[in-house]
């Protein structure tokens, strides 16, 4: 039932926001998201570290079409739920210094987004998964369209159509598999797995591509990334945070849950191509990030680079690859949230995001600079920060998979260090200039957001074991599902 609560509560809170339009919508939304966080922590405490989906609810939704409202939580889902429920309060808190018009709509949309994201991470029915997947797109589209920056009309429409195209491909693949299920057909995940594994190699290849493109667009993986820098740049800060910190994890989660066990032969035949695409994306995005002048755009490209590594490591289908992807998803979520927040703080005070106009912030804002250094070190995966554990596991799995690809992926960490340090140099160090001379250091509200994040960065870096344990059984289960099938056909 707690799963249903996690889904229903944000929706209810959002509807209340829409209807009541309270004066302090911010506080209302913050309280609602903290309740959600408490509920998810309760779930984490009760969670048994096995691969079996827990807290599950399974009732018929559309009986005549074999569609269930079926949700459940295993370790992989739980970590992503925690990521969502931890970050949403921070995202809401990070907006406290701003005054958006129609703020009750704004916060309501954020909460609906949260509901849809948790739905994606818990759905155990193909159709339900698709519905939540699309549902997540609608609030973020309107957040970007109504409160976004320059030229948002065209950019957000491109984003919407691009991602919708991918998900429709996924729907076609799911419906195709649905008709392969026995009897009166069902969208139940286990039945779809059996149907997918029973398909011919050729069909599995086609389904692989339909699903992979859908997930690759969401993440995004090269060459499906063209919507991303524009959308991240034009979206309001909270929208960018939702997109980059949580929403792109939908794509990675989709790979783990809805592709690898679904079409093992397809993954075996085509996984290598997908890994190569991911690695190309890493190098490509890192190189572009190095020459970026816009601070926010730079972070957007760095996000493509990081997510490329996650996808590549994941597609090696080893336990260390999947575990690395899990921990790296959490770490990336936290770090990218902090980075976009820092960009927002700087651009709010200086009215510019152009790196060449900034400089010398270190002299006037020591607290911000310290936080930035820590987040930056996390991003370049220095040991004892959260970024290290994930990147280490991912690169290890990639080296075992294919030495050259692993080596190239390792090199991109150096590229990452280059663009992050260059950013630091341009924005933070140097002489304080006219733009930054009146810069004030972090306010109390900003400290409330950033300091806990810093603690999380270190905590996850020093002692990641509890998190890794949560998803271990589920990751092993995915690998077993895959390799058991791959062995059986040899």
């Amino acid at each position, binding site marked *: 039932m707690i799963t249903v609560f996690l889904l229903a509560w944000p929706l209810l809170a959002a509807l209340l926001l829409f209807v009541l339009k309270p004066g302090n919508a911010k506080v209302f939304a913050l309280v609602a998201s903290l309740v959600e966080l408490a509920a998810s922590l309760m779930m984490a405490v009760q969670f048994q570290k096995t691969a079996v989906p827990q807290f599950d609810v399974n009732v018929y939704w559309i009986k*005549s079409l074999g569609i269930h409202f079926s949700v459940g939580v295993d370790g992989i889902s739980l970590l992503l739920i925690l990521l969502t429920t931890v970050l949403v309060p921070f995202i809401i808190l990070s907006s406290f210094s701003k005054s958006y018009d129609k703020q009750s709509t704004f916060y309501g949309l954020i909460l609906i987004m949260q509901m849809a994201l948790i739905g994606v991470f818990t759905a155990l029915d193909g159709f339900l998964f698709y519905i939540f997947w699309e549902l997540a797109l*609608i609030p973020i589209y309107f957040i970007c369209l109504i409160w976004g920056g320059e030229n948002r009309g065209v950019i957000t429409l491109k984003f*919407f159509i691009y991602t919708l195209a991918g998900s*429709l491909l996924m729907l*076609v693949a799911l419906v195709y598999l649905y008709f392969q299920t026995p009897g009166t057909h069902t969208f139940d995940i286990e039945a779809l797995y059996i149907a997918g594994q029973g398909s011919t190699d050729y069909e599995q290849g086609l389904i692989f591509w339909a699903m992979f493109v859908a997930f690759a667009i969401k993440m995004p993986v090269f060459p499906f990334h063209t919507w991303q820098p524009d959308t991240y740049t034009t979206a309001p800060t909270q929208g960018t945070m939702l997109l980059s910190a949580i929403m792109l994890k939908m794509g990675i989660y989709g790979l783990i849950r809805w592709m690898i066990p679904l079409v093992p032969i397809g993954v075996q035949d085509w996984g290598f191509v997908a890994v190569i695409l991911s690695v190309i994306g890493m190098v490509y995005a890192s190189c572009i990030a190095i020459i970026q002048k816009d601070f926010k755009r730079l972070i957007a490209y760095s996000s493509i680079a990081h997510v490329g590594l996650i996808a590549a490591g994941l597609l090696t289908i080893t336990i260390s690859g999947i575990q690395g992807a899990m921990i790296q998803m959490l770490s990336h979520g936290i770090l990218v949230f902090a980075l976009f927040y820092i960009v927002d703080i700087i651009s709010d005070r200086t009215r510019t995001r152009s790196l060449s106009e900034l400089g010398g912030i270190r002299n006037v804002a020591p607290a911000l600079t310290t936080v930035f250094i820590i987040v930056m070190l996390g991003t370049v995966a220095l040991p004892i920060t959260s970024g290290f554990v994930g990147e280490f596991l991912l690169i290890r799995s990639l080296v075992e998979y294919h030495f050259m690809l692993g080596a190239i992926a390792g090199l991109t960490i150096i590229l990452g260090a280059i663009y992050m340090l260059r950013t630091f140099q341009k924005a933070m160090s140097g002489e304080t200039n006219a733009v930054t001379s009146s810069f004030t250091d972090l306010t109390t509200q900003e400290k409330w957001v950033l300091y806990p994040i810093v603690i999380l960065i270190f905590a996850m870096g020093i002692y990641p074991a509890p998190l890794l344990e949560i998803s271990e059984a589920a990751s092993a289960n995915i690998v077993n599902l895959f390799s058991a099938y791959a062995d059986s056909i040899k």
Partner: protein
Amino acid sequence: MNALIVICSLGILSLVAEIVNLKKWLTTFVMMGLVIATGLIVMDWGTAQFYFSDMVFFDNFAISFTALILTASFFWFWMSGDYFSNQPHKTDRSALILFAIAGAICMVSFNNMAMLFLGIEILSISLYVLAGSNKESFNSNEAAFKYFIMGSFATGFLLMGIALIYGATGSFNITTIAAYISSHIDSLPGFFYAGVLLMLIGMTFKISAVPFHFWAPDVYGGSPTTITAFMSTVVKVAAFGAFYKMFSFCFYPVHSSWVLVIQIMTVLTLVIPNITAVYQNNVKRILAYSSVGHVGYLLLAVVANTTGASGTILFYLTAYSVASLLAFTVLHVVEGSEGNNALEKFNGLYKRNPWLASSLTIAMLSLAGIPPLAGFFGKYMVFSLALQQGYVALVLLAVGTSLVGVYYYFKVIVAMFFKDSDEATLPVSLSIQLIIGILVLLVFLLGLFPDWMITRLTVS
């Protein structure tokens, strides 16, 4: 069947109302009559009765289509109150609409080609007049004239087809014809096939399938907005019902001779209107092209499963009608008395009236097929029907055109939320707020709980 009598009596009452001075209460009276008629037709559910010497046949197919027509008409009368109150000839207009509804019911319940022809003509002639009911407007006159000329031409094809089929089979009764075709499948004369083809042309004109759609954008665009709403919902339901009944039931035994034609028309109807709509800068014309585009998805269902698509088609038409009525209601409020429905008129609607903008957004999202709204389930059912029968290429094409659809529907959304306007806030009367609320609710209910309707339709 009683429903048909109620509707005809209401039509006559409307004509008499001028004399007995009932004008003030007429719309209320008609709406009550529509509710009664809907109740009567729903009570017939599960029966399959022939009436009027086998001229009409009310099985569950006819009953469900009639119920949809009557419900849509009810909402139509509600949304278009000012079409009657602000202009002269209130009673005549009301009577014409009611006779058109009677014609629509005949079209979905016919069992005899003479009845089909009568239904189409009752419907069409009323519409020719209604399209031109805005006498002062050049566009309205053009619409009426164009519709009349083209419509008469199509009727000619239809009538010629009926004559040839009668010549080949010796009957107007479609049950008899179907039986005759099955038993003489190898010895049908060539002119029988010519007849089928002529009827196909006549009827695809009525459902405005490409390439017989050229009248639709001009007629839809030129007619008064409320009449456009009527044409793209009630009339479309009736026309498609008639088309489906004729071809899936009567001409099914020879379907190999016409299904290829329909397949080609499906492809054209999916591609051409959806692409043309992208270039429109007038919301009414966008909706007109979208209404033609939706016929493509309906035809896809017919192609995929000629005999078993009635449930899917009815669900699709219901979802489409609800969303269209919602869109037209908002459009009608926004265009105001001057009838300006250019895209710029929608700029900044979100600031002027968030409720209207959100409702139109929901309508557009539903028409575009975004889950979990009604339109999504309509499209989902069509696509899954086609995938089940192995029409993967057609489904991928339809997915592509849906994406194009998203583009032009979202043009309206972007205008409402993104562009600015310096016009004052837009007040909406309570009655219109209520109908918009109900229609929004229906869009959600049909999307979230489609099971209720699907189970009933698949049984029928």
